[in-house]
């Protein structure tokens, strides 16, 4: 897939229309700082990121970034537009309205969705992002690589499974069920030796002998029902005094003091949990605030779904987990308190019912001690509906008075209870406990079954994370081979080797880069690598990932990525581009004139096109292409205001150009002592070209090879002007407009003379394996040796 054309209109630096026509070739675009090169990268990012550009994500750019993406001088109501044509008649376009609303269209229709599924990080590398990955934390690297590895969705699966687990716990009232089960089991075991069906049946069968005449039912449930009825009938047939003692015993059996203590304890525990939660949440938020204050723009981040702010993925996930854990603890405490409190209220309600039974009510009214009468009166005044809903903090004294008053009064009275009554009361409690066995069993079964789901979700999360880990390791091992190969080409014979991605054992979601630095193993490149080397490593990683899977057929955009590199390493990059990325479309943007000149002279014109953007004049004028591939427009731009600076600029352009040409033609330069070898000027080079060119430069005319004299005379003219005006502009000042224009024309003509008029390629472009000569692609021009 290759880009044929990018057309911008009123987008970023572009005005009416700016068209980059690649003809499906790789391109190098030169432009001074601010010339508008990055507008093309921004356009691609805008389409891929569905109407967003990362470096414009700030408070000043507007809701839809309309203040940043649209040219500030766009005429009223005119939309900004981007259009990208690919080979095979594929086309994607976007129209951006005044308010920043983008409208995408593409041919075919699904192309825009397909493009938006691409990972920007495999497509565009910008100057300020080259080392971004290298300097990320290991968690940041993991988050950044996950989408490139195609594993982001698996991370989402793991997160959803964790959330689902938490919701299953909440929606099933698991905490409340567990608390209730604990209470019921505790109560039942006070009266039964164990809760197995056989044991309960044995206990009930023993009791049945005292209460049932005739056949004893063999089933536990039926036996329990029959026993309950028999015991109640026995109590009903007793004298009023015995009935009264039975009822009073029933009040004591409710064990209100321990239920009151339980309700109070769980209330305090719940309060404590809330306090701890508040402290913990404030602590987490303060740390988050501190972190946001220190956040670097280049760090690996995700957008917080709560506030929309970018946060480090690993910290955000930890934060959410901490919050969930705290909330789960509070929820458990709340459920425990609710259960304890409602158990007490139910007991109080039951006691009120007992006290209202005819036998007891009459006795309380006429004979009971005044103290008991008072507390029963208080109990009758309680609003149980209100109390059931919430622990009555403001009525705590009333609660204490009722519970303590009733229990102490009833205990005094029961000291005189006949022993036979104690037994019947105990027997009734035993049967009641047996009746609760079904509820206990149901609760047990429910909690076990809920744990089936929880267990399945737990093991699924573990399996998904293991899959992510194993797959990640497999891919990064392969990527590391690619990175090592690219690194070795960029840094041959350097003592930094074995560069590879790895997953640290000690961390769950982490990836880092290790290397050997002068033979010593290093766990991170941040320890030893210089800025230039870090950038170089960042580029290797980007290039390796850009070759991953289906991304390997797409173009790549490199925006000003070699700023911190020396000339030698830039030269190595040319090798990578021409060898490893020969079949790939590369859009390379640079503001460095010398680098552009070198690329123009070294990259084959069969695969590459070269463009020069003129210095940007203003929003009305927009992006302007130079008509030539050289960089003399930079000098022309200076003529009006500063002719000497323009002349100096021409001189520098020629220094670089002729140095590279001399290298390509293998011109032998006389040896100079020390540093002076590196300080040759264009005049030194052109003089050698003139002397060697007379013998070596040949042009074919028909079947004949003739000495190519026309360039020699052009070079002689240029040499003269460089000495007369170029040196003067560099050293003494005083140069006028006409002189600079004449100098530029002469220099351009001299440089163009190395290019064949027939095939438009340079004389060194074709097969270089022949020892005896260089030639252009069509073979019309030759530079012969010997």
């Amino acid at each position, binding site marked *: 897939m290759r880009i044929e054309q990018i057309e911008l209109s009123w987008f970023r630096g572009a005005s009416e229309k700016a068209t980059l026509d690649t003809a499906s070739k790789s391109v190098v675009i030169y432009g001074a700082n601010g010339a508008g090169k990055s507008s093309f990268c921004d356009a691609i990012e805008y389409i891929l990121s569905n109407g967003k550009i990362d470096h414009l994500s700030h408070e000043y750019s507007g809701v839809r970034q309309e203040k940043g993406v649209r040219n500030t001088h766009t005429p009223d109501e005119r939309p900004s537009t981007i259009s990208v044509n690919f080979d095979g008649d594929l086309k994607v376009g976007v129209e951006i309205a005044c308010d920043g609303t983008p409208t995408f269209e593409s041919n075919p229709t699904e192309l825009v969705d397909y493009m938006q599924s691409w990972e920007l990080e495999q497509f565009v590398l910008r100057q300020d992002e080259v080392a971004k990955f290298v300097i990320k934390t290991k968690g940041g690297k993991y988050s950044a690589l996950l989408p490139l*590895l*195609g594993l982001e969705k698996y991370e*989402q699966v793991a997160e959803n499974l964790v959330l689902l687990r938490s919701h299953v716990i909440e929606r099933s009232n698991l905490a409340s069920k567990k608390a209730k089960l604990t209470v019921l089991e505790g109560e039942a075991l006070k009266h039964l030796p164990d809760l197995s069906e056989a044991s309960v049946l044995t206990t009930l069968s023993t009791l049945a002998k005292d209460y049932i005449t005739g056949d004893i039912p063999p089933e536990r449930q039926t036996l329990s029902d029959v026993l309950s009825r028999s015991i109640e009938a026995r109590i009903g047939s007793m004298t009023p005094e015995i009935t009264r003692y039975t009822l009073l015993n029933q009040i004591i059996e409710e064990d209100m003091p321990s239920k009151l203590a339980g309700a109070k304890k769980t209330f305090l525990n719940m309060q404590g949990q809330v306090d701890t939660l508040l402290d913990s949440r404030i602590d987490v938020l303060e740390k988050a605030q501190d972190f946001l204050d220190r956040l670097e723009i280049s760090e690996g981040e995700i957008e917080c779904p709560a506030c929309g702010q970018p946060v480090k993925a690993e910290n955000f996930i930890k934060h959410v987990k901490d919050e969930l854990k705290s909330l789960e603890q509070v929820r458990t405490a709340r459920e425990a308190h609710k259960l304890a409190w409602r158990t007490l209220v139910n007991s109080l309600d039951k006691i009120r019912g007992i006290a209202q039974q005819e036998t007891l009510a009459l006795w309380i009214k006429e004979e009971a001690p005044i103290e008991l009468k008072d507390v029963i009166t208080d109990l009758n005044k309680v609003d149980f509906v209100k109390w059931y809903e919430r622990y009555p903090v403001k009525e705590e004294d009333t609660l204490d008075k009722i519970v303590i008053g009733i229990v102490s009064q009833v205990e005094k009275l029961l000291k005189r209870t006949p022993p036979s009554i104690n037994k019947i009361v105990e027997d009734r409690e035993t049967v009641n406990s047996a009746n609760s066995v079904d509820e206990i069993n149901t609760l047990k079964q429910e909690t076990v079954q809920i744990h089936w789901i929880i267990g399945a979700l737990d093991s*699924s999360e573990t399996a998904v994370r293991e899959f992510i880990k194993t797959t990640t390791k497999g891919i990064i091992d392969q990527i590391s081979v690619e990175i090592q190969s690219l690194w070795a080409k960029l840094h041959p014979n350097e003592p930094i080797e074995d560069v590879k991605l790895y997953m640290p054992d000690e961390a769950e979601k982490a990836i880092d880069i290790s290397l050997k630095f002068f033979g010593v193993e290093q766990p991170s490149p941040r320890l030893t690598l210089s800025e230039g080397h870090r950038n170089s490593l960042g580029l290797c990683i980007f290039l390796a990932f850009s070759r*991953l899977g*289906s991304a390997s057929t797409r173009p790549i955009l490199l925006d000003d990525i070699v700023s911190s590199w020396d000339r030698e390493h830039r030269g190595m990059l040319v090798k990578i581009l021409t060898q490893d990325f020969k079949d790939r479309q590369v859009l390379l943007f640079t503001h460095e004139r010398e680098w552009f000149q070198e690329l123009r002279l070294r990259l084959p014109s069969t695969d590459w096109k070269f463009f020069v953007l003129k210095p940007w004049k203003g929003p009305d004028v927009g992006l302007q292409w130079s008509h030539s591939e050289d960089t003399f427009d930079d000098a022309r731009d200076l003529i009006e205001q500063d002719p000497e600076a323009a002349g100096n600029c021409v001189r520098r352009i020629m220094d670089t150009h002729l140095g590279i040409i001399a290298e390509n033609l293998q011109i032998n330069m006389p040896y100079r002592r020390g540093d002076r070898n590196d300080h040759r000027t264009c005049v030194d080079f052109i003089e050698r070209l003139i002397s060697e060119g007379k013998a070596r430069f040949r042009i074919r005319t028909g079947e004949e090879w003739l000495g190519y004299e026309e360039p020699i005379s052009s070079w002689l003219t240029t040499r003269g002007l460089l000495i007369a005006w170029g040196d003067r502009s560099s050293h003494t000042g005083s140069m006028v407009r006409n002189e600079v224009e004449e100098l530029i024309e002469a220099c351009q003509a001299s440089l163009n003379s190395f290019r064949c008029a027939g095939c438009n390629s340079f004389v060194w472009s074709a097969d270089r394996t022949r020892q005896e000569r260089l030639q252009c692609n069509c073979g019309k021009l030759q530079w012969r040796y010997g």
Partner: protein
Amino acid sequence: MNNPDTLKDGDSALVDILRSSMAELDKQSPRVYQRLIQHARENFFEQHQTPGRIRSLADELLTELKEGNEDNENRTN
């Protein structure tokens, strides 16, 4: 080199992972198991979900659990 798009199309890979890690659940509660696998097939887990949608799935699972018990009881009776 692995093709990440192969991984991206790995719906069946995910379903396979869930199937094998939920094998026990399949025996314990086939209805809950099927509901989870159905959601996995529909890419539910691969996309960001709101708390409401997660809660709703939790309710569905608990209902399936309950109805599974009723099925068992009916069969026993």
